[in-house]
């Protein structure tokens, strides 16, 4: 079957959704389909141009395509009779982020009108789709709450599972991924000041801004943790990143209200590492079973420091919890074969 993946493009930027589309295409082809990806430019600033870009997508004519798998707003509004959605997210600034006051749609008549048009286009898209999958329970819940549509959760698999084999415990907690205030690496560093002396922490990943990097450096210096906290703040090659995970004692991931499990947690599980997260981390907290596959701490320095004491106390226990974590992950059957099969149902 000829399957066209349809997603957005933020010109000259490349992120997780782009990577997902690449791997989806690769795995569709591996499953015997023909697959290509249509990446449609989308600029959400200035907000008044969102509507014309929705119209653009809606106006495009597709031929020579049997199936569409659409991922993001507004690319998913494209017209096609065989359209399946794998919803990564809606335009959140018109929904939950609007409620939270984080939006570029003003609270005036124009802003209201843009929000109404986005909701209508979304509703129409959801009605005409063959099937709606989402990338997480949070996305499904939002879809139900704001648009009233049912959906099935289909977690995006790890793209390169083979590199997360696990290996040894070199005595450090690893915090990987993008570095910014919402991911709260600073909480971990502050908690390290109260953690057992033998335990180390490695924070590695690209900082969103120079300020984000400076904040962590300052924090380490002020607490005198240079010997126990390593900051490796840059974009890491996948191999380097996997080495950090494979040799860690446990993996920490404390985002504020993450939509999904998060790749960091999934990769830790594949490497048989227990995961440290916090009660307000959204999808990640759903994944971690407290004191079984990891720890769910209260999101403050004292709470995390308390967990770090437990992590440092018994290497054997950490290893057992890592094994349970892998077991839980395998039980979820999140792999590309299953994913392609369900998307093509």
């Amino acid at each position, binding site marked *: 079957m000829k399957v066209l993946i349809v997603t957005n493009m933020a010109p000259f930027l490349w992120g997780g959704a782009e990577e997902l589309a690449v791997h989806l295409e690769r795995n569709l082809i591996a499953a015997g389909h023909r697959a290509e990806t249509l*990446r449609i430019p989308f600029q959400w600033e200035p907000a008044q141009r969102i509507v014309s870009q929705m119209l653009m997508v809606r106006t495009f*004519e*597709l031929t020579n395509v049997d199936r569409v798998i659409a991922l993001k707003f507004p690319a998913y509004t494209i017209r096609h009779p065989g359209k399946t959605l794998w919803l990564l997210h809606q335009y959140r600034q018109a929904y939950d982020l609007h409620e939270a006051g984080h939006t570029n749609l003003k609270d005036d008549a124009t802003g209201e009108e843009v929000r109404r048009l986005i909701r209508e286009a979304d509703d129409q898209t959801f009605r005409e789709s063959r099937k709606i999958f989402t990338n997480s329970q949070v996305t499904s819940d939002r879809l139900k709450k704001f648009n009233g549509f049912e959906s099935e959760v289909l977690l995006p698999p790890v793209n390169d599972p083979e590199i997360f084999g696990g290996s040894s415990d070199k005595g450090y907690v690893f915090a990987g991924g993008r570095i910014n205030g919402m991911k709260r690496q600073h909480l971990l560093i502050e908690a390290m000041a109260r953690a057992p002396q033998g335990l180390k922490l490695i924070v590695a990943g690209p900082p969103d801004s120079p300020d984000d990097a400076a904040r962590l450096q300052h924090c380490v210096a002020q607490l005198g943790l240079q010997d126990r906290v390593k900051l490796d703040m840059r974009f890491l090659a996948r191999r380097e990143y996997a080495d950090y995970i494979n040799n860690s004692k446990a993996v920490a991931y404390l985002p504020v209200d993450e939509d999904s499990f998060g790749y960091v947690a999934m990769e830790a599980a594949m490497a048989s590492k227990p995961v440290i997260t916090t009660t307000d981390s959204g999808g990640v907290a759903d994944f971690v079973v407290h004191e079984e596959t990891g720890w769910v701490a209260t999101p403050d320095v004292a709470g995390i420091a308390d967990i770090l004491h437990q992590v440092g106390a018994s290497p054997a226990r950490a290893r057992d919890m890592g094994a349970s974590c892998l077991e839980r992950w395998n039980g979820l059957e999140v792999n590309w074969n299953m994913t392609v099969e369900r998307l093509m149902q």
Partner: protein
Amino acid sequence: MRFALVSSFVPFINGGARNIVDWLAATLRAAGHEVEIVLFPEVDDPDLLFQQMMAIRWMDLSMADRVVCFRPQAHFIRHPHKILWFIHHIRIFYDMWETSYRGFPDDHKHRELRAALTEADTLALQEAKAIFTNSQVVSDRLQRFNGIASEVLYPPVFDAGRFHCRGHSDQVAYICRLEHHKRQHLLIEALAHTQTPVTLRLCGTSAGDRYPKELQQIVARYRLQDRVVLENRWITEEEKVDVLADCLAAAYLPVDEDSYGYPSVEASLAGKALLTTTDSGGVLELVKEGVNGLISNPTPQALAKALDRLYAQRHDTVKMGVQAKHRLNELNISWQHVIDRLTA
């Protein structure tokens, strides 16, 4: 600089139009630029043309410093630094209006659509900072239909250095899709009229089964099995380099092609003389009779004479092959020239 390369496409169909975009992207990146390829779907249905035109109008590529537009209707994009590398109009409304390809009646509605399209195209073309075309034929059409001047910027092939000459066999090679308008049949028929033992190799795929079968039948009819190799498949790039390295000369005889076509540039890079016909269009911008190849009338008899001449006067054929390479320099067919012009 940040370049967005914009073109329309039909999903799951590859062709020369995508090659030029991919190759330019690779070349710009190698020169240190950031590049984003933006392909959008488009169908040529007359009733849907104008709404699709609006869709392109709504595309926001303000993040790019420059946009380069290829296939229609990419040229409708709004951008302060729009460059066109115009490869063709929607031809059924232009030069192919009077042909059977049109597919709709020459009635009031379609004449009005044609006039409106020409007017809109002209306005969109006028917005561009620079207009390049892929051939003199296309530049002439822009002048004739839209009254707009343009500069010919010949599309080079990718990684030109891999082509080379190893020698000269008795074989004339025609490496191109097997399609009726490429006229492989004419070359086989010509072979039946030759006096010398010159041979042919035809390699390429076809959109359907019919034409390759027809070609086989012609080979059988004239009992040319020993002198014609017909490979109905897409040969690898390495095989192509080998075939061109060893052949006596290369043929390219399309009916009124817009541009000189990649097959003739590849053969020229391999230092081989070209055989083409008086009605092949853009190919005639490249081939000069007796200098870098032969230009024959499109009949089996005339082509047979040309084939015999390539075989019998081998010394001249080798010399024309050397000239074929020089001719590319003369026309400035190189990526360096393309980059210079697009970043000017």
